[in-house]
């Protein structure tokens, strides 16, 4: 029996993973279904010499994180869907000023105030337009609590490597479910300090103006040439992420129908895929673990002389990840959907029925 397993709620596990990765500042504002993230940080951060602030609003809290992260401190915020929209200004500023911060969206039904139940209707926002200006981020989409822990732990390292915000895109199931997890090691205070010192060149650490160059955090400026150069540099960074793609696949070598979904939908769809494969059905499976960068190459490599349909499973109507699948598939096979939205949760039985229909050459809608 594994000694290290602990039983944790998704939200709390994410917060603990962040602390272990070296996060020492969190600011947030309450919203269901992610309240256990700030609640956990409020208790935990003072224990490790960190700071927790419940801001007066989403906008205030994301800007506190902008400030804290500008000093090189590992900092995080979190919210849910409509709260994430409110944070988008601050995230865009962080992306422009190239600030390494991490934030988490435990998404709920939308649009607008929507519902408090689990949903996946923020895909396009997360991967394409998390604020103005066309910036991009690495976006991780964990399918279970262990992945949420591992991805959050790594997110701070990616953010620091790239000097760019990183988003953990979860949903209300992932946030509230409890599962056994093995937690990553706690980084020592020395290590956390060393990681911060690595950022000394650009971070606002109080440089001695007589001996060192001063640091500036600039989310924009008067020079259009300079701003264009910023965009060019950013675009080069985004292109470099193709090496960082993470994806889970099953049975692509013989698949006639390929099922795809991310996060909770991906996990639920996997049950249906495994059940049908056990019956001998030729069903494949692609679950993007990073939705930005998206695993286009995995779709590129499919044998389209054999794959007669792709089933896109999402808790979003209209389907949003489907747009990325379409970009990858380029009309080489048809793409069908199995969808829910607004807080209604996918069942594996529905996915199973949709796959069976496609295997028999039918349609899902």
């Amino acid at each position, binding site marked *: *029996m*594994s000694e290290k*397993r*602990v*039983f944790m709620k998704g939200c709390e596990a994410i917060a603990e993973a962040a602390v272990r990765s070296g996060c020492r500042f969190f600011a947030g504002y309450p919203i269901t279904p992610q309240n256990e993230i700030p609640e956990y940080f409020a208790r935990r951060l003072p224990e490790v010499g960190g700071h927790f602030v419940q801001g007066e609003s989403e906008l205030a809290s994301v800007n506190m994180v902008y400030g804290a992260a500008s000093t090189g401190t590992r900092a995080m915020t979190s919210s849910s869907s409509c709260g994430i929209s409110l944070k988008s200004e601050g995230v865009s500023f962080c992306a422009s000023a190239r600030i390494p911060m991490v934030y988490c969206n435990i998404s709920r039904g939308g649009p607008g105030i929507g519902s408090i139940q689990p949903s996946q209707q923020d895909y396009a926002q997360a991967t394409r337009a998390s604020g103005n200006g066309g910036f991009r981020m690495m976006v991780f989409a964990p399918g279970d609590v262990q992945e949420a822990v591992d991805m959050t732990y790594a997110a701070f390292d990616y953010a620091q490597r790239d000097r760019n915000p990183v988003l953990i895109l979860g949903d209300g*199931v992932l946030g*509230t*479910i*409890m*599962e*056994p997890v093995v937690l990553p090691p706690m980084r020592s205070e020395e290590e956390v300090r060393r990681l911060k010192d690595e950022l000394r060149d650009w971070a606002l650490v109080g440089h001695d103006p007589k001996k060192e160059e001063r640091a500036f955090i600039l989310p924009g400026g008067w020079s259009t040439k300079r701003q264009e150069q910023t965009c060019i540099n950013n675009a080069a960074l985004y292109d470099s992420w193709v090496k960082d793609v993470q994806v889970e696949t099953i049975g692509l070598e013989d698949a006639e129908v390929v099922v795809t979904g991310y996060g909770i939908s991906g*996990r*639920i*769809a*996997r*049950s*249906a895929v*495994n059940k049908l494969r056990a019956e001998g059905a030729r069903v494949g499976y692609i679950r993007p673990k990073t939705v930005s960068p998206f695993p286009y190459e995995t779709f590129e490599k499919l044998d389209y002389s054999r794959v007669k349909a792709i089933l896109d499973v999402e808790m979003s109507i209209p389907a949003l990840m489907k747009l990325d699948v379409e970009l990858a598939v380029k009309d080489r096979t048809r793409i069908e959907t199995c969808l829910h939205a607004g807080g209604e*949760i*996918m*069942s*594996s*039985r529905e996915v199973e029925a949709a796959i069976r229909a496609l295997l028999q050459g039918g349609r899902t809608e």
Partner: protein
Amino acid sequence: MERNMMIAGSGGQGVMMMGKLLAEAVCSSTDLNVTFFPSYGAEQRGGTANCYVVISDEAIGAPLGDEMDEMVVMNDLSLDKFLQKLVSGGTLFINSTIVKAPEDRDDITVIEVPATQMALELGSPKVLNIIMLGVYIGYTGALDEQLMLQGILQKLAGKPKLIPLNEKAFARGLEIGKACRQSSETR
């Protein structure tokens, strides 16, 4: 093998605690995979509350679903709402003090436990869920009874005064669960 169970009742009946106790004990005392998924409205008391526990020796896909092998139901409202999720051949545990056994399902086994009444007799309506947990473990053997008891005791480590009452409640439930199992096997 995968075991899908659901516990449903009203807020305040200890529905979530029962599911969490079971799932936590499975996590800490076995190598099995387990998920606990709560679902409830905004109310702290009086609203509907239900949770799903999935226990499996393989990776768990859906942590909730429409095909439950076992269901523990604490009030009528939940029975009406969720009974259709119980698979044919499944087991229904009801708090028979306030829940009437369904008449239209002869494809399932119904275990009737006057849990509210028993809890009151033991001295506190709050141990309703521990009685039901005992019945569930006694009947299904989903987890070793000693390991389950250890889990309960661990939870109560900070409130030692409550231990005797909860031990008694668990033992009473266990007894009923085992007796029901025996009679169903000899039938």
